[in-house]
């Protein structure tokens, strides 16, 4: 009877479907004996894909230069896996990376949330993980296997607070995106700012991707702060700034390195004028490594890179450097130790040294958008 035959064929199909990933994975490991591999988990699709795509381009630039330099006799490969900024996917990818014996270190993820979910896997398995952007205060505390080369908000917040206090700003309104990063950015800044004698007149969080800030802006205007300190990424930044100007509100805006992106100027145009922020990457820097990177980036993308690609570029190079140091017997443990020993690594975002807490010690710069360009200022 047809009724009984149908389920059977479908069952066979399902069986085949179950067997297929097994077969591909087995084939994959067999081929992977030769080159050394780095895993890179990042959002290549989904709402934050633009960041992941930037990381990927930066990593490809870094890797091509490294393999061409001949610093190692074997090739290094990077395996990119798309996490969609989804913890479920991130953990699955982490397991996949851990399973591949050729992978000696992992880069990523983009958000702290996914990085930390995956970190549980890396901690168990003993896999060094270096995130270019996870800034959650607890991230590096998860285990001795977690590193990051981005300054945490524990550093950036007080730095900005000191800057604004020095400028004579006493009353500030705080606006942050409702993410782990936004929360910590606001918190570290507020603590330092109030400790320095300033006053926070308003604290507001918004859901990322909010199209309309005007109600919030009007509220800020009413609180009459001397300045607004903002923890947002470039797209929200552009919307925020544009709508502020529309409403005719003229309050200086300060922000973090996350908003340091050429796209802010592209999207907000003249309205972006006067936005002040901190960064550790200046594309206009005369340093040769920066010039090289910027030139390569412009070749691929046609515009100058922002803070995040630079972070990724450095992260890849730091990881590669650690692999070189542990060569010829490259193991995950040796790469971890080499990473921990990173000292004065000359990157495009300044020199990186990992402290005993696996946090980077880095220099920040102050910039402001003047005449449509991020301009370093010495205030």
């Amino acid at each position, binding site marked *: 009877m047809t009724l009984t035959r149908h389920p059977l064929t479908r069952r066979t199909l399902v069986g085949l479907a179950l067997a297929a990933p097994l077969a591909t994975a087995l084939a994959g490991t067999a081929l992977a004996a030769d080159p050394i591999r780095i895993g890179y988990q990042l959002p290549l699709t989904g709402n934050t894909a633009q960041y992941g795509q930037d990381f990927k381009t930066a990593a490809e630039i870094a890797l091509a230069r490294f393999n061409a330099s001949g610093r190692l006799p074997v090739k290094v490969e990077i395996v990119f896996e798309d996490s969609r900024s989804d913890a479920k996917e991130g953990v699955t990818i982490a397991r996949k990376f851990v399973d591949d014996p050729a992978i000696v270190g992992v880069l990523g993820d983009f958000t702290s949330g996914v990085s930390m979910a995956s970190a*549980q896997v890396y901690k168990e398995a003993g896999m060094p993980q270096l995130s270019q952007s996870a800034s959650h205060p607890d991230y590096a505390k998860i285990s001795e296997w977690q590193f990051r080369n981005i300054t945490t908000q524990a550093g950036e917040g007080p730095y900005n607070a000191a800057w604004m206090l020095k400028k004579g700003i006493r009353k500030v309104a705080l606006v942050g995106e409702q993410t782990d990063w936004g929360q910590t950015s606001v918190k570290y800044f507020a603590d330092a700012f109030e400790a320095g004698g300033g006053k926070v007149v308003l604290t507001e969080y918004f859901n990322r991707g909010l199209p309309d800030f005007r109600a919030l802006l009007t509220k800020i205007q009413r609180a009459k702060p001397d300045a607004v300190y903002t923890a947002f990424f470039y797209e929200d930044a552009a919307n925020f700034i544009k709508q502020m100007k529309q409403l005719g509100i003229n309050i200086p805006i300060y922000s973090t390195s996350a908003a340091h992106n050429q796209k802010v100027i592209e999207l907000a145009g003249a309205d972006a004028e006067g936005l002040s922020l901190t960064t550790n990457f200046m594309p206009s820097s005369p340093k040769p490594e920066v010039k090289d990177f910027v030139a390569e980036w412009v070749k691929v993308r046609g515009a100058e890179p922002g803070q995040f690609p630079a972070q990724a570029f450095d992260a890849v190079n730091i990881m590669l450097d650690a692999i070189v140091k542990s060569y010829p017997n490259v193991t995950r443990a040796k790469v971890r130790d080499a990473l921990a020993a990173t000292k004065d690594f000359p990157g495009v975002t300044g020199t990186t040294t990992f402290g005993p807490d696996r946090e980077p010690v880095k220099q920040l710069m102050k910039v402001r958008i003047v005449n449509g360009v991020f301009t370093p200022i010495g205030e």
Partner: protein
Amino acid sequence: MSDFARKGWIGKILVLLLVFGLVPAALAFAGKGYFFQVANLVLIFALLAASLHLVTGAAGLLHLGHAAFYGIGAYVAALMGTDLKLGFIWGLPAAGLVAAAFAFVVALPTMRLVSIYFAVATLAIGQMINTVLLNWVAVTKGPNGVMLFSGINLFGFALKAPLAVYFVVAVLVSLSIFVLHRLSHSYYGNALRSLREDDQCADAMGVNTVRLKIEVFTISAFFAGVAGALWAYTTGYVSPNDFGFSTSILILAMIVVGGLGSLPGAIIGAVVLILLPELLRGLGDLRNVMVGLVMFFSILFMPKGLFGEVSALSLVRRGFGLKWGAAPSNREVGWQ
């Protein structure tokens, strides 16, 4: 008894053999954490789809906020594990019960709504719960999420090995699905289906429709909560993003692809929609387009799903010994 019962056992033993023999053997042989992760994910989503099946497939209530109850379960388990130091043994039932309690409260006013009104109400409730998870920082730790380091600890035995974790998940999911199976393939299930077909008419047949809806919504949320606890303990990290509208839609897509109204279909739908994106990883950026296309074509060419209700029901009856003969002489065999 005898003949039919024996026939039933064969079907059940085959399924159990697959879940507890073949799959773990293959997983252990491959020795890959990745496969264990995918297998756990499949099991958890199979439970989510099976629990949604009860509400949407059987009782016909289009539920667009299932992921919120999954999230409540995950948060209860994770917060109990970290803040209260109450481990898996307490966290698991608590996750189910709290999710069910929420569902019950929510169900009281909403269950009188019909059709699309009900769907929108569940959508709104799902979004509200998610908003609370994201913004009630004091309790849920907000966007930071909750990290759960403790792992599964059963009566003093800390289960570390992936195989052991798989078995815990598999046993719990199987038990839950067994309960859901009993509920949907029984006279109780028939009453549920009558709600889907014509609830006014069911009322005239003496079925207390509102009570039944509240009951089934609550039961379904209980199992979603259990699935949430399993997710929290297998991942070690929960954050509000995992329990949003898109997850609700994913679960709904599972039961639709599998065949609305069929429990085996719901489970197969979960298997397909979890495995498919993994299989398509090689396609890179295009894989989500592919998932959308597969979903579309499966709806277009298999309107009854991979495993429509009618064929599923007759298979269950044949395979699980619930078949009755056409002649009244076999009449003692009906639903069990």
